[in-house]
């Protein structure tokens, strides 16, 4: 697609409603996203925050092309969008090496590319001694490290990250965050979903706050996070709502 602007992806009025079966032929409708409009610029890191069930995962599924929205439109100016997950396509019977190649291919590389990066990924994941063991012999932390390391090394025009920085022990987590930061500060475009306000503040250029299927606020990380935090106090606080509101916005 030839587009003059620098937006990698644009959403306009995107909405999605789930239909669940509640009886033999009866259905219930749940509106996960009602009206989402935003765009992602090339090279930026956009954070998405919001409470559980606010539609973050659904939004990521729409961005990565897994779901088509029911309404609105999406325009993509890139070819490779990867949803980074810690266990993409893993098969417990296969060895670490084989799973590494599989995950690499699923994230959009060719087998040759994946094999080319094999040693580098294994070293980063600190799994040199286990890489020829079947994955079922791995601890969950080891699996997560392997998944994260593959995702980190594979090329993508747009990288979607859903809460995956909490990998492994403290030392590895630190290394993961540093590596992710390096990748983010290079030219990588990232959409970053997290509950860790600390990480969002550190990593993101812009933040979107999602609530009840709409964009409640969008802009400077500091400001949006503050608004969100205020809102949380409001919702989860105890006592008279009006009074608390008065205190908060005084």
């Amino acid at each position, binding site marked *: 697609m030839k587009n003059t602007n620098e937006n990698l992806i644009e959403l306009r009025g995107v909405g999605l409603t*789930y*239909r*669940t079966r509640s009886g033999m032929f009866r259905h219930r409708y749940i509106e996960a996203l009602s009206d989402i409009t935003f765009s992602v610029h090339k090279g930026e890191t956009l954070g998405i925050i919001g409470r559980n069930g606010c539609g973050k995962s659904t939004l990521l*599924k729409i961005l*990565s*092309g*897994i*779901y*088509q929205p029911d309404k609105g439109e*999406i325009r*993509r100016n890139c*070819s490779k*969008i990867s*949803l980074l*997950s810690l266990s*993409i*396509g893993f*098969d417990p*019977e*296969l060895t670490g090496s*084989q799973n590494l*190649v*599989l995950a690499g*291919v*699923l994230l*959009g590389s*060719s*087998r040759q590319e994946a094999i080319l990066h094999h040693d580098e990924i294994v070293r980063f994941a600190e799994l040199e001694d286990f890489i020829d063991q*079947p994955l079922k012999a791995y601890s969950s932390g080891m699996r997560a490290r392997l998944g994260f390391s593959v995702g980190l090394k594979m090329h993508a025009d747009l990288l979607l990250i859903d809460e995956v920085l909490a990998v492994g022990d403290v030392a590895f987590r630190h290394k993961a965050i540093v590596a992710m930061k390096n990748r983010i500060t290079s030219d990588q475009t990232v959409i970053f979903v997290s509950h860790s306000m600390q990480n969002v503040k550190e990593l993101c250029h812009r933040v979107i706050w999602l609530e009840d299927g709409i964009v409640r606020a969008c802009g400077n990380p500091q400001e949006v996070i503050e608004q969100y935090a205020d809102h949380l106090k409001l919702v989860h606080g105890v006592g008279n709502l009006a009074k608390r509101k008065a205190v908060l916005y005084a």
Partner: protein
Amino acid sequence: MYSLSSRHFREVFITKLVFNLKSEASKTYLGYLWWLVEPVLYVAALYLVFGRFLQIRTGDFILFLVCGQIPFMWFSKSISSSSSSIVKGKGLISQVAIPKAFFPLLTVSQDLVKQLVVFIAMLGFVLAMGEGITIHWLGLAPIIMVQFGLIVAVALFVSSIVPVFPDFKFLIGTGLTILMFGSGIFYSYEAVLLPEHRAIFLMNPMANLIKNYRDVLMYGQFPDWSALLAIAMFSIVLTVVMLLIFRRYDSSYARLVIQ
């Protein structure tokens, strides 16, 4: 629609194909040997029941059984395993924008690889039973190709229904059993059926294909080309229709499976 490029699709497909075969084999002690052991067990069981207990003793009954049971098992196993392939692909579907036809196609391709090994063993058996190689064996390749086409079409069809109506899975099992009895695996339709019913019997594509396998391997004849052509045409039309449906409803399948 945003989805995998066709090059990427091929890459994922081949990688998954090889790894799935390896993974499946590593789950059992006998591993790849099961590809051969299983059909042998089935044929042995049928021979015991029909050849010994029920005393059906046409001259080369065991060969007759092999030529019917082996192709039928291929069909039956491919269809039943592909029927829930999309539902089982949930893990991938929730992580990658992947065309849903990927899953039934992958399943039938895995079964094709195994079946080719079985066919080679089967030809060895046919030779060991004293049949010679004839020019008519050339007809075997088209029969196998047509059967594969039929399997692809039916696999796409059943796998498209199960995510929408999970209850359909039970009907597939029953349907395959009925089909087994209706395909003339352990009886000769010419010996059992009235002449006016034979044409109807041969409208069952599996019955027809099995008859063709026997014509080529046992009776020194070329296959019935017009029947093969008809089955191929049916398969192609059904495959195209199913691929279009999968394309049109790709996102709906993703939602059905993930929720």
